[in-house]
């Protein structure tokens, strides 16, 4: 047996202020106390079964894009990730060094996208993503979390959104986009605080911060479809959740509660959210559980579902189609997370004449390597992501497509970097981009 490499200095360490400074403050007593507290009080039979019953068959390895991309380096397989982190913590009953904690957290944060593809490869269905989440939680409680993602979690805590967007800036961004859009659609309004509207539309904070055109496009689609909707003007408009990914469940719970309560305050029937994967995971799968809800307390509709609904009900119609060859990337959080693969494809195919599938696809698709909070760990780990996802680049290249549709913000970030690094001649688009550009605009001038 090879010694778990996270215990040594020679391990593939990437300098990071959050990890290094955090680890420097640790004492053996504190490490032991926190690890045992998390394992004894916050985990139960699932975690215990995953710790005890994995038979080390290695079948999960091929499920992981890091493993495939790193020339089948065994230390990147899902089972090796548990071997180098949680198993060792449990085996030593929390008596691990600060160096070990630091490296284990780096691994759990940057070499696993929590994409759950390996669940299709493990006969027992051992949830490596869940175990990596526990390792991140231990790190967070010890104050050892990569700096960039910790900053976004701090932003969530202070402002209830991910990007330090202040209340007036949020409203201002919406008004600005309304102004812009009225050049094209003279009657368009971006409704704010409309009580009793059918839909509350929520977005992730990067939209007002640097992808503001997405708000314009969404407003144009809502307007064209004649939907009764509103944006909230108060905190609670942001559905994103990096607190979930750093393992700060307390802040995650506050965020989700505020998001749901904002919708309830506005007395809307449902929340529609933009094309974001992780935020969707946080509202119907993770955050809701923390708050004690089996599902979400209010109906949550993802952008893909919503566009599908608009298209099949005839509320929006196709005006033109894209001629270029198009392929569709399945984002983990809405595919392995919610089974939206067919709806996404139907929308894409309605607007694209020439369509090709990547293989493997749907629930077996390869991750973008940005999700699970990995891209949010920032520039120090860009190489980890890009080198760790050659498999995806090869998969994209094999299609020969000119356009990749990815209905998820994080996937855009990850795929953009891969397209660049591996010199792929491809353009990335959201479904919203395509619909906005190619739908029938009956209300435009």
């Amino acid at each position, binding site marked *: 047996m090879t010694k778990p490499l996270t215990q040594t200095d020679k391990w593939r360490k990437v300098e990071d202020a959050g990890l290094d400074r955090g680890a420097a403050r640790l004492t053996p007593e504190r490490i032991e106390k926190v690890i045992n507290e998390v394992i004894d009080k916050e985990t139960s039979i699932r975690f215990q079964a995953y710790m*005890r019953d994995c038979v080390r068959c290695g079948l999960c390895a091929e499920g992981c894009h890091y493993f495939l991309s790193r020339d089948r380096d065994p230390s990147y397989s899902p089972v090796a990730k548990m071997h180098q982190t949680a198993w060792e913590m449990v085996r030593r009953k929390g008596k691990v060094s600060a160096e070990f904690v630091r490296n284990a957290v780096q691994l759990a944060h940057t070499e696993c996208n929590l994409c759950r593809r390996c669940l299709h490869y493990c006969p027992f269905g051992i949830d490596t993503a869940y175990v990596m989440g526990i390792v991140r939680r231990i790190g967070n409680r010890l104050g050892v979390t990569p700096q960039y993602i910790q900053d976004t979690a701090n932003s969530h805590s202070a402002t209830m959104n991910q990007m330090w967007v202040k209340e007036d800036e949020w409203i201002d961004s919406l008004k600005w986009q309304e102004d812009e859009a009225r050049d094209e659609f003279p009657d368009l309004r971006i409704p704010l605080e409309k009580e009793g509207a059918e839909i509350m539309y929520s977005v992730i904070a990067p939209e007002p911060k640097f992808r503001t055109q997405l708000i314009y496009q969404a407003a144009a689609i809502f307007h064209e479809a004649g939907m009764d909707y509103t944006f909230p003007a108060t905190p609670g408009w942001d559905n994103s959740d990096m607190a979930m990914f750093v393992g700060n469940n307390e802040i995650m719970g506050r965020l989700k509660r505020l998001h749901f309560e904002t919708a309830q305050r506005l007395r809307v029937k449902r929340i529609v959210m933009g094309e974001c994967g992780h935020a969707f995971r946080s509202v119907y799968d993770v955050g809701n559980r923390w708050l004690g809800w089996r599902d979400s307390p209010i109906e949550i509709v993802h952008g893909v579902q919503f566009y599908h609904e608009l298209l099949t009900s005839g509320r929006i119609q196709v005006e033109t189609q894209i001629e270029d060859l198009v392929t569709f990337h399945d984002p983990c959080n809405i595919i392995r997370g919610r089974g939206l693969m067919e709806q996404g494809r139907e929308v894409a195919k309605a607007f694209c004449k020439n369509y090709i599938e990547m293989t493997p696809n749907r629930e077996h698709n390869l991750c973008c390597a940005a999700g699970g909070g990995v891209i949010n760990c920032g520039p120090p780990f860009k190489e980890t992501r890009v080198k760790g996802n050659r498999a995806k680049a090869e998969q994209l290249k094999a299609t020969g497509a000119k356009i990749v549709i990815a209905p998820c913000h994080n996937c855009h970030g990850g795929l953009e970097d891969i397209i660049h690094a591996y010199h792929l001649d491809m353009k990335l688009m959201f479904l919203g981009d395509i619909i906005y550009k190619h739908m029938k605009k009956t209300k435009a001038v």
Partner: protein
Amino acid sequence: MHTFYDFITGPLLWISFLVFLAGSVYRLVYAYMEAKRRDQFVLVYWSWKHVLRSMAHWLVPYNTMRWRTTPVLTAVTFVFHILIFVVPIFLTAHVMLFNQWLGISWPTLPEAVADILAIVVVLCCGYFIWRRWATPEVRYVTGWQDWFMVGTVLVTFLSGVLAYHQLGPYQIMLYLHILAGEAFLVMIPFTRAEHMLYGLFMRGYIASEFGAVRHCKDW
């Protein structure tokens, strides 16, 4: 020497059975209680419809993407797991022992068939050992427990076969066979062999989560 034989096929055997049974019941009850007390989502999300749908895929060879990806390993895995139950339970010699002690009996495999099947198990163990050694991603995470587990099965079946054919020192083979078999029974609730008890439940939970919550198949 007869006393030793009597001991390992008498009290020691019953102790092994008892530890195996009591340990297994304890493990299963404990899992249920733990889920109820501290991991309620396991029970809340549990959905028999999705569990059975998933099992219908995972328990049938080549019926999942995973099983199709590694055809040889899949065949060996299924054959091995079926035979380590079938051979010991339906072996004439074992049934005769039960008949002698408890007066109960059940149909048995023809001796020649059982012999071949036992040799197949030995070959399967050989394959697992080779794979564990030769595949980097498996070797990387393999510990002494894994060698011990497969080793115990190997010794049990190999010594059984050798004793049956009276190859090598008969008595030693027989004792080895009995002791290794008993050791394996005892190991089940306490080592990774526990996957015999929890394996289906682990798959069942994830099948429920994928099916009922994520609306996505898990195979």
